[in-house]
C-alpha cells in the first residue's frame, strides 16, 4: 500500500537522502582518484623510504587493486565505519574526526542557534517595518555582515578584542595547561568561545535576516494578511499568527540548503581562532595534504549537511499542514 501523508513524505525524503549520500560517497572516491601522483608517495614524502616499504604500504591501503576493486573495498570499509587512515596522523580518519566533533558541535550549535533566533527576529521586524529607518538599518547592517568573509571578521575581532584590548584569549578552546576542572573549565571554555561564536553569529545573522525579511515581505503581500486585517486582528497577532508562521516556512527550507554554505564559516573561524574542531582539521588536512583525512572530513560535512537537510525537511513537513496530511508538495 502506498504510504500517504507525512510518513510517505518522510520516507521519500529519507530515500532521497540515502541516494544523495551514496552519490557523495562516489564523488568523494572519484575526486581523490583524480589526484596527480602516487598517494603513497605523498604519504611518505621522505625519499629514503624504500620501494619495498612503499609496496607494503600500497597494499596496506589497498591501492594495488584496480579502480573498481578499490571502490568496492572503499564501500565495504565505509560500511564498517572505516574512512581510511590519515596520512598525517596515522590514525583511523573516523577516530581523528570523532575527536573533533564535540568541539565543533559546541561552537556551531551555539552560534547557529543564536544566529537563527536573532536573524529571524530581526528579519521579521525588518520585513514588518519595511521601508522604515529601522528596516534600512537592519538591512544594511545585515548585508554588511553578510559580505564580510568569516575569516576577515574573525581576524578583525581578534585584532581588536584579543590583541589590542586583551579582553579575550588569542584562540584555542581553553587555557592550555590550566588544570581547570568542572565549572571553572566550562567558564574558561565559554570565555574562549566568545569571539569565535560572535564571528559565526555575525556572519550567519545576515543570511537569516535577509531570508526572513524577504520571506516576510512576500508573505505580507499575501491575501490572507489582508483577510487577517479585515478581521480586525491586532497587528501583533497578525505578525505572529499569520505573517511569521508563513514566512518561516521558506526560511526553514533555506536553512537546510544554507547548511551546505554554513560549513564555510566554521572552517574559517576555527582556523583563525585555532579552535580544535573539524573546520580546523580541514585546514590542517589541506596544509598537510592529508587526502584521506580531507576525504573523510568532506564526507562528514557532506553527510552532515544531507542529514541536517533531511531533519529540516521533516520539520518542514511537520509544520506545513499541506505536507502533513499528504497533499501537494
Amino acid at each position, binding site marked *: 500500500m502506498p504510504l500517504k501523508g507525512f510518513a510517505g513524505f518522510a520516507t521519500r525524503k529519507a530515500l532521497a537522502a540515502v541516494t544523495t549520500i551514496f552519490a557523495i560517497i562516489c564523488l568523494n572516491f572519484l575526486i581523490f582518484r583524480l589526484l596527480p601522483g602516487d598517494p603513497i608517495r605523498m604519504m611518505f614524502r621522505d625519499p629514503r623510504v624504500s620501494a619495498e616499504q612503499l609496496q607494503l604500504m600500497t597494499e596496506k591501503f589497498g591501492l594495488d587493486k584496480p579502480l573498481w576493486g578499490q571502490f568496492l573495498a572503499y564501500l565495504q570499509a565505509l560500511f564498517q565505519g572505516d574512512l581510511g587512515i590519515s596520512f598525517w596522523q596515522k590514525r583511523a580518519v573516523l577516530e581523528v574526526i570523532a575527536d573533533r566533533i564535540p568541539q565543533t558541535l559546541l561552537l556551531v550549535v551555539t552560534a547557529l542557534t543564536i544566529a537563527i533566533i536573532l536573524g529571524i527576529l530581526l528579519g521579521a521586524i525588518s520585513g514588518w517595518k519595511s521601508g522604515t529607518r529601522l528596516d534600512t538599518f537592519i538591512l544594511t547592517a545585515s548585508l554588511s555582515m553578510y559580505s564580510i568573509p568569516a575569516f576577515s571578521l574573525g581576524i578583525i575581532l581578534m585584532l581588536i578584542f584579543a590583541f589590542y584590548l*586583551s579582553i579575550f584569549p588569542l584562540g584555542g578552546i581553553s587555557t592550555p595547561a590550566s588544570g581547570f576542572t568542572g565549572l571553572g573549565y566550562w567558564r574558561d571554555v565559554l570565555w574562549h568561545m566568545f569571539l569565535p561564536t560572535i564571528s559565526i553569529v555575525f556572519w550567519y545573522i545576515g543570511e537569516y535576516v535577509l531570508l526572513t525579511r524577504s520571506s516576510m515581505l512576500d508573505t505580507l503581500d499575501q491575501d490572507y494578511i489582508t483577510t487577517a486585517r479585515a478581521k480586525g486582528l491586532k497587528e501583533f497577532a497578525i505578525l505572529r499568527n499569520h505573517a511569521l508562521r508563513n514566512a518561516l516556512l521558506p526560511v526553514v527550507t533555506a536553512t537546510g540548503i544554507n547548511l551546505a554554505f554554513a560549513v564555510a564559516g566554521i572552517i574559517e573561524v576555527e582556523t583563525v581562532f*585555532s579552535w580544535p574542531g573539524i573546520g580546523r582539521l580541514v585546514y590542517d588536512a589541506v596544509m598537510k*595534504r592529508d587526502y584521506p583525512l580531507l576525504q573523510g572530513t568532506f564526507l562528514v560535512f557532506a553527510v552532515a549537511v544531507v542529514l541536517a537537510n533531511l531533519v529540516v525537511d521533516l520539520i518542514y513537513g511537520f509544520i506545513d499542514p499541506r505536507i502533513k496530511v499528504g497533499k501537494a508538495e
Partner: protein
Amino acid sequence: MRTKKGLLSLLVVALLALSLVTACPAPTTTEEVEQLNATIADLEAQLAAANATIVDLEAQLAAAMGEPAEEIAYGGRLDVGFTAGEGLETLLCDSNWQYTEMGCVFWPLVYDQLWIMGPAPDYEVLPMLATSWETEDGITWTFYLREDAVFHDGVPVTAEDVAFTIENLPNADPAWAFTDIITEPGSVKVIDDYTVEFTLEQSIGTRWPAAYWAPILPKHIWEPYTDDMLSFSNDEAIGSGPYKLKEFKAAQYVWFEANEDYWGGRPYLDEVVFRTYGSEDAQYMALKSGEADMIGYLGCSAVAAEDFIGLEDMEVIVSPGIGLQWLSFNLYKDTPLQDLEVRKAIMYGIDRDRVIEMAFLGYAQTADSFIYPEVAEHNPNLPQYAYDVDLANEILDNAGYLDSDGDGMRDDLTFELLAPSDWTDELKAATLIKEQLAEIGIDISLTVLDLDTYYEYIYTPEEEEYEIAIATEEPGPHGEWMWEFCRSYEAGGEGWNTAYWANPDFDEALDAMLAEVDVEQRTAYLYEMQMLMAEDLPYGVLYRPDLINPVRTDEFEGYVETMGGISTWINPWTYFELHLK
C-alpha cells in the same frame, strides 16, 4: 670510542678497592706492607683512573642533564609557543614525532636515547641511557646501559627495551627508517640485562655512533603492539626521560612535569607546556604579554624580530640556521641548464646578499655547501660565486646565449622556477631571484605548486616536469644523508638526486667516505665531495636563514643555543638547562 668498559664495571672496581683499603687488617710484615702498599698504589691508581672517569662522566652528565648545582633554583613553568599547524595531534610513534616541529621536540623530553648529540659548538657525542659502547667495524655495536634508569611507571630500563625499540621502531613508521639503525632481522641481541648488541646492514664510519635519535620505548607497554606499533595510542607516553607527560590535548597543548626520579636528577623546571596558537601573530602577542616564554622550533620571522629587540625582560637570540636553501637544476631535461656555464651564470647572477637583506632582513648567511661552515668537515676553499652581473653576462655571452631579438632576454634561456605554495620565505626568495636573473637576460617564470606535486616533480627529474626548483633541507651536524642528493642514478641514487647529477668521482668518494673510520681521511673525502658539487653545480647552495628566537628573560635564564636556535630536533638542551633566575 671513548671507553671500552662500562661505567658500571669501573665503579665496581673502585668500590671494591675502597672497601679493601678500609676493611683490611693492619699489616704485619714489611713485605706484607710493601706488598700491600703496592696493591694499594695499584688500586689507588685504578681508583684515580676510575674517579677521573667518574668525574668526567659526571661532568658530562651534569652538563647533559642539568645536574643540580647548588645555587640553581628549581621550579617554574616554561610556556613554549607553537603555531597550530606545528601542533602535535597524537602521541603515536609516527613520523609526526620525527617531522613535526612540536613532535621532534616533544619526545626527547619524555624518552631517553642511547646517546645524545651535545650542544654547540662541538655537538659532542654524550652518553645517555648507554654509558658506553663499542664497535670494531662499524657494523656490530655493543651498548652498555646504565642500571639506574627507570621508566615513568617505575619499571627499570633494560637491554630488552632497547632491543625491542631498535627492532621494532623502524617498522612503526617508515619515517623512522634511518640508515644508521637498519638492522638485519634477528641481529639485535640482548647480551645481559644491561648490554645489547646489534648488527647493522651497512657499516657506519662516522664519528657518530649508531642509533642516534631513537627514543627508547618501554617494552612492557609496547609489546602487545609489536605488529603495528601505530595501533598503540600511547596516551600516557611512558618513557624514561627527564620529563613526564602530565596532560596531552591534541592540537592544543602538551603539558609536561619534571620527572622527580630521573636517573640524572630532575630537571630544573617544574613544568613545560607546549601550547599552540592560531597564527604567528597570536604567538607573538602571547610572547609579549608573557603568556608564552619562548617560541618553539621556528622562532619568529625576521620582520617580527625587531619588535622584540629592546623590550624589557626580553632577549632576541639569533642563531645560525639549521636549514639550507639551494637551487636544484634538472640536468636530465634537455635545456641549456645542462650547460655548466649557464648554471654558473645563474649563480653569479643571484645577489644573495640582497635576497638575504630583502627576504630575511639580513637574518641569514650565504652558504656554499651542504656542510655548515662551523662544522669541521666544511671545505673552506669552495668557489663562492659572489654576485657579479658582468661576469655572469660575460659567461653567457661567451657561451653563445645572446639576445637576438633585443627584448632584454637571451634566447632559449627561459626557465621555470618551481616552488611550493606553502613556503613563504622561499617564495619571497624565488620572487627576488626571478627579478635578479632578468638582469642577466634569463627569463624565469615562477611556477607555484602544492607541496605534494612539488615533491612529486622534483624527486622524479626524469619526468621532466621541472627545470629549476628552489629546495630546502635541514642537514644538521649529523648530515651524511644529505649526500644522497648527489649520488648518481647509476650508483643507486634515485629519488634523492633531484638534479639527476651523475659524477662517478663523487659516487666513489661518497662510498669511501661512508665506510671510512678514520676521521681525517673522512674529512678529505668530504672536502673532495664538496668541491665536486660546488664546481659542477648540480645544486646551487644559496644561503642559510638564521633562527631568531625572542625569549622572555624575566623569569628564566639558561637558554641553550645551537645551530637552528634554542629548540630544535638537535637541541632539547634548553629544556634541560633552563632554570629560574
